[in-house]
Every structure is written in structure tokens, then in C-alpha cells.
């Protein structure tokens, strides 16, 4: 990977959630505190203008990473740097504002991500007002400016200016997602975190939204962090991809490398499970087992109970991400030891 300063750098970030029972119950039952390690020691960086994707199954912590980056949750440890500025060094609200403006988020559910009681115009104008992006020309002047800016944003995402008068329930799911995108663009950001932006949409609408996002990325030089469980979508949008399993990254690679030469056994398993729309007729080996309970993750490499090539070392020792070549990093003892895994995967 290149040596230029990344736009976003996530370094050894951890986030634990306290999932123990209420204090009194815990004391009476004499139970220890329970910690859920939702994100456990994750590091990656995103270059300006690229789309970096995080993939994984539900509960792997990918959405938590998204929320840590935009500041919805504080980190338990580790640092997140945006253009070299560490977030944890900024404590005051007004210090955060300039950074918050440049970084927004699009959510999964198009219906709940818009306040049902607000008109679309006010929804899109909220960031403009919050960051005071139009403070010229007095109150009436700025009101007109906001009005025009909202109209411009609506048209930019493929809706009409007149749609600003309506309420969210008057729109279809795809249109609601366009409104969410317009709101995300309102603060003129450089970086957008997209948390499963098309998972709740039908395929034909998904195509519209993905195309729109690609267009906007090109026009506005946006950088995306794209969270998804759908590998085909990830293949279509990403430049670089990180694969997560139980709160940890098991492989980071550029798109071509990952899809033509997946290394980590989990990545291979995921690829194996994708329904084959090309109907090539190749027989799949269904992977056995399920994602274990994240509160009591397996020892060593958390994937070892499902891994066909795990050995004693995998049960004991946790693998760290290691640079394999200029294209990819993998956290796997088997890769490091060059164990033969071809017999287990086709």
C-alpha cells in the first residue's frame, strides 16, 4: 500500500460493550462482568478518493466500526485519525464541528433514517443550518440560500425541487435513500460512511442508488467507507476491502486480489457460499458451523472451530494481520506457515 498520508487512519481500535446483567442481579448471582468485544484491535487506512469496504456476516462488528468512526460511540482504546488529526484530542463541541462537517453517514433503513414528522426540505437543511453553511445576507437571505441549496441537492440526487415540500412517507424506499444521500451531501463532506446503504432495497433500485453514489463520488471527489454483507455489491463498488470476523479483520486486500486470490480460509468460505447466478453448475461445498457467540469467542484464532486447516497453534495463538505482498494483509497462521489448503477448497 502506498505511503501517502491517508484520509482516515484507524489504529488498533477496540470497542467493548458491557452486556452484563444489572448490578444488583449480578452481585446476587455472584457473576462477573460480561464484556462483548464488538471491535477488537482493528487497524486500516483509507486513501482519499477511494472506496474502502468492510464485509462480514451479521454481528462481526462492521457496523460498530462505522459508528466509531463518525463518533456515535467512543472508542475503548486505539485512535482514529482524520487527515492526521486524532479525534480523541478534540474534546470541545466547536473543535469537533469542522471535522464533523467533512464526514457524514448514510444508514441502512431508508424509512427510519428520515424523521417522519419533518418535511424533506427541513431534513436536508438540518446539516446546512447546524454548520451555518450559509451565513451571508441576513436571516431572509440565508433562508433563500438554504431553499436554493436544498433544491440543488434534491436535483443532484435525481429528485425534483418540488419534492422538498413532501413528507418522507410519500416516497418509495429508493427515493428515501436518495433523500438520505442529499442530506449527507448537504454539509459538503469529503468522506461518507455508508452502512449497508442498499441492503433494504430491491435489486433494480439498488442499481440506481449504487450508480448515483458512483457518480457523486466522481463529481465531488468523495471517499467512501462502504459497509456491506453482499459480496457482489462490494465487488462492484470497492477499491480495497477488509473482511471481518467476530470483531477482527482477517484479510485486507485490493479488490482484484481478494476476488481472484482470496487467502484467508474465512474469505474463501464466504465466497463459496455466494449463490452462483452464472449457473456454472459447479458444486459448492456448504460450510458447516455457524458464527460463535461473540461474548465467549473461541480461543486463539476465533475462526478455528470452523476452519478445515486449523491446528493446535490456531487454537492457542491469535494470528495478527501480516503483510503478505503489496496487495494484501492476512491474519492466518496457515498462510504464514504455507500450509496446503487447496485440498479443502475448490
Amino acid at each position, binding site marked *: 500500500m502506498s505511503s501517502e498520508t491517508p484520509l482516515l487512519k484507524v489504529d488498533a481500535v477496540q470497542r467493548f460493550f458491557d452486556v452484563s446483567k444489572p448490578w444488583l442481579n449480578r452481585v446476587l448471582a455472584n457473576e462477573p462482568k460480561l464484556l462483548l468485544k464488538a471491535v477488537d484491535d482493528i487497524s486500516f487506512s483509507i486513501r482519499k478518493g477511494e472506496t474502502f469496504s468492510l464485509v462480514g456476516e451479521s454481528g462481526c462488528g462492521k457496523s460498530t466500526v462505522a459508528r466509531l468512526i463518525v463518533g*456515535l460511540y467512543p472508542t475503548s482504546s486505539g485512535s482514529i485519525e482524520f487527515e492526521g488529526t486524532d479525534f480523541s484530542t478534540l474534546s470541545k463541541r466547536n473543535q469537533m464541528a469542522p471535522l*464533523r462537517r467533512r464526514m457524514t453517514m448514510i444508514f441502512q433503513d431508508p424509512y427510519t433514517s428520515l424523521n417522519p414528522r419533518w418535511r424533506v426540505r427541513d431534513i436536508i437543511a438540518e446539516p446546512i443550518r447546524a454548520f451555518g453553511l450559509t451565513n451571508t445576507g441576513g436571516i431572509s437571505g440565508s433562508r433563500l440560500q438554504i431553499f436554493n441549496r436544498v433544491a440543488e441537492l434534491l436535483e443532484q440526487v435525481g429528485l425534483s425541487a418540488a419534492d422538498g415540500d413532501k413528507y418522507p412517507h410519500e416516497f418509495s424506499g429508493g427515493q428515501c435513500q436518495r433523500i438520505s444521500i442529499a442530506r449527507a451531501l448537504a454539509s459538503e463532506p469529503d468522506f461518507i460512511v455508508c452502512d449497508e446503504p442498499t441492503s433494504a432495497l430491491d435489486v433494480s433500485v439498488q442499481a440506481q442508488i449504487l450508480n448515483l453514489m458512483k457518480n457523486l463520488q466522481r463529481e465531488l471527489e468523495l471517499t467512501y467507507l462502504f459497509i456491506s454483507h453482499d459480496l457482489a455489491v462490494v465487488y462492484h463498488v470497492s477499491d480495497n476491502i477488509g473482511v471481518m470476523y467476530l470483531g477482527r479483520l482477517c484479510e485486507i486486500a485490493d479488490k482484484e486480489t481478494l476476488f481472484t486470490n482470496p487467502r484467508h480460509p474465512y474469505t474463501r468460505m464466504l465466497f463459496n457460499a455466494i449463490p452462483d447466478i452464472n449457473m456454472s453448475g459447479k458444486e459448492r461445498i456448504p460450510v458447516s458451523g455457524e458464527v460463535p457467540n461473540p461474548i465467549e469467542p473461541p480461543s486463539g484464532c476465533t475462526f478455528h472451530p470452523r476452519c478445515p486447516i486449523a491446528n493446535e497453534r490456531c487454537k492457542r495463538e491469535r494470528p495478527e494481520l501480516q503483510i503478505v505482498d503489496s496487495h494484501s494483509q492476512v491474519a492466518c497462521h496457515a498462510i504464514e506457515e504455507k500450509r496446503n489448503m487447496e485440498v479443502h477448497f475448490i
Partner: protein
Amino acid sequence: MLKRFFDSDLVYSFTRSPVTILAGLVTVLYFLASIFAGFVAPHNPFDMASLDIMDSFIPPVWEVDGDPRFLLGTDDLGRGILSTIIHGSRISLFIGFSSVIFSLVLGVGLGLVSGFLGGKLDAFIMRVAEIQLSFPAILIALLINGVLRGILPVGQQSNLAYYVLILSIGVSGWVQYARTVRGSTMVERNKEYVQSARVIGIHPLLIMWRHILPNVMGPILVIATIHLAVAVISEATLSFLGVGVPPTEPSLGTLIRIGNDFLFSGEWWITIFPGLALAILVLAVNLLGDWLRDVLNPKLR
């Protein structure tokens, strides 16, 4: 806009339910009569000068000794029962309404803060609520009433009686609002539109006010309607127990208490008619509340 309102499901379901229409009419009638009590009532029962002790204990018109001036008869001071009921409803509704608003503001505020911020503050507010819930509401109202009366100077007591009542009934009723709002707030707080506002960095108080409050008000409207009936009854109970409004400006509860003394001497109308008036008002408001709850609850549709 008006057309949209008449086309809404609310109006549709209202016009489909005869019981609700009747309850609505009765409630509106009570409100109108209360607001315009001065014009509607045949006499002014608070004007001591106009009262004649010779008119006391006249039975309703249809009884043998009835007097056409007093449709529902008179009480011990010669006040027309109909007029006292109209003026009494006014006082009852005023106190009921004010204490509902007091409870609502207090309960919704605490519920929002509790549900949105969570943590120790939430735990504290909810424990207080639970402790209060373990006593009957009327006991809480009596307690607060007693404390306030103890604090106030003796001369001021009858002047401030209304406010003491509003405060005591109001404080006894906030818990339900707080618990409901807390629950819905905890649901709304995790919705993505709230998270989106947090990502922008909107102040938590503003998020509560602008984003969450409008979305949790639905059930509150239902509770407030039913609570109005409860508050009117609480006021009547307190007045009946003699710690409510003074007998010179009687509410429905006070009227029932006054009449109660004469029930066994045969002057039944003094207590029965205010009692009926109270029962009909409470029933009508309750029916409205039930209907509103059913309409606003999508699960029952």
C-alpha cells in the same frame, strides 16, 4: 389542508362509531357550558346577595313542591342545583385540565431525559417513579395537598386552593407519562434519523425537542385524555374529603359532599344530580380516550 383532515383515518373512524360521536358531543357540551357558564346558567350561585334562604330545599320541577325557576331544585342555601352543576363543572374541568397539563409537561420532560440520556439519572428518575407508583395516586395527592396547606399562611389557603389542588393532582400523575415517553424515547433514540442528527453534532437537548418529542406524542394524547377523567375524579375526591375547593365556590366534588349531608333527610337531589353530572362527564371523556387509543394503535386495527 382541511380536506386532508376530513379525509384522514381519524375522522373516518370517528364518523363510523356512534358511541364515540355521542361521547364527543357530551364532552363538547360540557366544555361549552363550562366556558360560557355565566351565560348558560340560569342563576349565579356565587352571588350571595341574589340568594334567598326561602328558596332552600326546593325539589326538582317534576316533584310536588317543585318550582319552575329551579329545574333541578335547590340546595340548603337556596342555590339552583342546575346552576351550581354548570359552575361546578367549570371548576372541575379547569382544575382537571390544568393538572393534566402539569403532569404532562413534568412527565414528558422527565421521560425524555430519562430515556435519551439513560444511565444513573434514568435509574434515579425511574426508582422515584416506582416508589410513587407503590402508593395510590389519591394518597400522594392528599399528602402533597396536606404539606402545601401546612406551608401556606392560613389566610391564603382558600385563595390558593385551586393551585394547591392542581399541583397535588398534577404531581400525583406524572409517572405514567414519564414511563410511556421513556419507553418510546428509547425506541426512537436508536432509530437512524436520530443517529444521523447526532453525527452532525446537534445538541442532545435539541434532538430531544425537535426530533424525538414529535414522534412520541401519539400515545401521550391518549393518556392525557384518559387522565383528564382521572384528574376530574381526583379533584372530586379531594373536594369530597373536604380538602379541595371551598364550599363557597363549589366544584362537582364539593357539591356531592354538601348534598351527602342531606341524603338521609330526603333531599336526594342535592347530591344525586352533581353525582350524575360527574359520572356522565367522566364516562364521556373515558370513551373518547378509549376510541383514540384504538385508532392510534395500529396493532388493534
